[in-house]
């Protein structure tokens, strides 16, 4: 016991009565974005640059007032946070998200001239900033309320449903919706291709990763070599890897007829799949290896001492205990693959990346969004879903 211990301790931790500075500042940021940035833009047709509108013009004074009140409400509640206030905050954040398309509907009535069927509404910077900050608020609230990932995910799915309903029923004038309506078949096919590519790449690398990790555990020498190769693969830029695969695969397809008939070619799905697997292997193998190695030696020793055979020890003890960390690897791999698959569009593998590159080519930002938003959504859904699954697999919240 030193004299230092006798000094009064400075207040470092927030207790319940202190303002939650994170949420208060996020609320201020949203208010500033709402009044300072463009809420929507309107263009008479697809080619012309749109005109931007601020909060009062886009929503009228009742809408702007309501939004301002809701945004300030977050800051006020966060000033004296309690468990009840956090629940109210959760409700407020969800309400704001659900009201976003309603704001767009209001803007379309206020701004779009019914005489101009080609006129389209673009989302302004305000929407993106507020949406992003609301998601940050959600993370903070989730941590304070000690919720698992499952509930916020379910609530967000509800919000997404509201958006979808509003978009299909009342938001014909939204540029994003118009881009979608112009190519809905193509859009659905692209999502299908995207999900198939990601699914195939991830499931193959899960199997290969498990086998490789198990081999590494048996043959220590393999471990260094394999990690070196996988690390090297990870450093090649994705576009370069697609390019590198072009020549050898084209040669193989031309000279080995069987492979050609199986769909191997220089461009298209096969090289994209190979590259995706190459990138997926490192996070997959690394997590699987660590997951299997991390299992407590005491537990395994006990399993052996109790008379479990090697197979029983692996399937009943080592694998189930490794599963949460292993699933974490699947989550990282899948989210990474969802993003990388966008690039695969460049070598003709299809997927949502097609819209991004077409949109970039035509300088049609709404078309880029049509590709980019679903990719973002897919990544978020997979991230939350697999994260929740990994959490659920930890019995009683161990580790």
């Amino acid at each position, binding site marked *: 016991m030193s004299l230092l211990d006798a000094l009064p301790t400075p207040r470092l931790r927030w207790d319940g009565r202190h303002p939650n500075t994170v949420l208060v500042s996020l609320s201020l940021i949203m208010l500033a974005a709402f009044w300072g940035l463009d809420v929507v833009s309107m263009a008479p047709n697809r080619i012309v640059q749109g005109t931007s509108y601020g909060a009062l013009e886009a929503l009228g004074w009742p809408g702007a007032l309501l939004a301002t009140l809701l945004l300030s409400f977050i800051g006020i509640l966060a000033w004296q946070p309690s468990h009840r206030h956090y629940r109210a905050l959760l409700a407020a954040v969800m309400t704001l998200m659900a009201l976003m398309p309603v704001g767009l509907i209001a803007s379309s009535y206020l701004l779009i001239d019914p005489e101009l069927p080609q006129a389209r509404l673009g989302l302004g910077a305000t929407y993106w900033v507020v949406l992003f900050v609301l998601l940050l608020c959600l993370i903070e609230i989730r941590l304070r309320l000690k919720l698992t990932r499952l509930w916020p995910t379910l609530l967000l799915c509800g919000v997404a449903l509201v958006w979808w309903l509003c978009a299909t029923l009342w938001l014909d004038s939204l540029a994003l919706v118009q881009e979608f309506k112009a190519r809905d078949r193509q859009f659905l096919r692209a999502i299908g291709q995207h999900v198939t590519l990601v699914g195939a790449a991830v499931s193959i690398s899960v199997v290969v990763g498990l086998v490789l990790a198990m081999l590494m555990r048996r043959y220590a020498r393999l471990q260094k070599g394999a990690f070196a190769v996988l690390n090297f693969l990870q450093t090649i830029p994705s576009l370069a890897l697609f390019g590198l695969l072009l020549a050898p695969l084209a040669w193989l397809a031309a000279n080995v007829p069987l492979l050609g008939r199986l769909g191997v070619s220089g461009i298209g799905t096969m090289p994209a799949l190979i590259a995706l697997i190459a990138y997926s292997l490192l996070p997959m193998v690394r997590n699987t290896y660590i997951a299997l190695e991390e299992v407590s030696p*005491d*537990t395994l*020793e006990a399993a*052996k001492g*109790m008379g479990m055979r090697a197979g029983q020890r692996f399937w009943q003890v080592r694998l189930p205990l490794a599963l949460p960390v292993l699933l974490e690897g699947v989550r990282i791999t899948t989210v990474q693959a969802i993003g990388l698959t966008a690039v695969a569009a460049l070598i003709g593998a299809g997927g949502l990346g097609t819209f991004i590159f077409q949109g970039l080519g035509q300088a049609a930002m709404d078309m880029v969004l049509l590709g980019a938003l679903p990719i973002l959504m897919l990544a978020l859904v997979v991230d939350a879903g697999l994260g929740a699954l990994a959490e659920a697999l930890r*019995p009683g919240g161990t580790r």
Partner: protein
Amino acid sequence: MIELSHVSKRFGEETAVDDISLRVPKGKFCALVGTSGCGKSTTLRMINRLIEHSEGDIILDGQAIEVYDPVKLRRRIGYVIQHTGLFPHWNVARNIGLVPRLLKWSAADVQGRVEELMDLLGLPVGEFAHKYPHQLSGGQAQRVGVARALAADPDILLMDEPFGALDPITREKLQDELAKIQARLHKTVVFVTHDMDEALKLADHLVVMREGRIVQQGSPLALLQQPADSFVESLLGGLERGLKQAALTRVKDHMTSMGPTLPAQSRIPADFSLRQALSMMLRDHSDRLTVVDQHDVPIGELSLRRIIKEAQLDKGSARE
């Protein structure tokens, strides 16, 4: 019965266990004591073939252990380790039922046995059956560990410093309960510990090991009366040895019938230890105690003079 004769274990150049021989008769409790790294754990793990011995013979129930299939052998031997080794993803009931399930008992039999054992180890079924190991205190977790080891009713129980990680009070409580369980079940137990008091309290047969060899073995009393060398003596607590010996002796073995003099004020139950009797004499400034039975009826007398005299006699008889 477990019999080791001239058993050695070498890891490469190093000899972990060097030519040890020992015999644990059926139903007896044998404690292996020594400082860390003396080979006591290795010796234990050779018995259930977690480590294969290099030389000598290990005989279990008249058969060399090489004859048994290691997996089937381990299912017949209860095994308890220091950090419990409970499976964190299984609840208490499932952990305890492990070996019976490996032996393909019916679900009803497994459940019946699990409840019986939880009862034996003082774990209320309703409260604990569905808890996970991380929800248990250290003492509760090791109770589950012992229950798991006893689940398939093995004849042999191997315990590797089972109470080493517990706080002193919990440790003592579990030692008492283990002694009670052993008095009821009569397992053949090999118990590894570095805590001499624990060994003295529980063991019928005590084996002191150092650098892979057995320095001395015998009954706790024999070792206390006649330690083979200064190492054993220091393990036994040096000057405290006399009191430790007294702790192993019952009052009733040293009492005399009531004398003609007035009975002493202080009373002591007959099944208390001499150590407790000595403590009471010091406390009450008395060199005589009245010994009573469980109904507090005087049945004899204990005098300091007699305790000291008989201690000398014991020493003489141990020498022979």
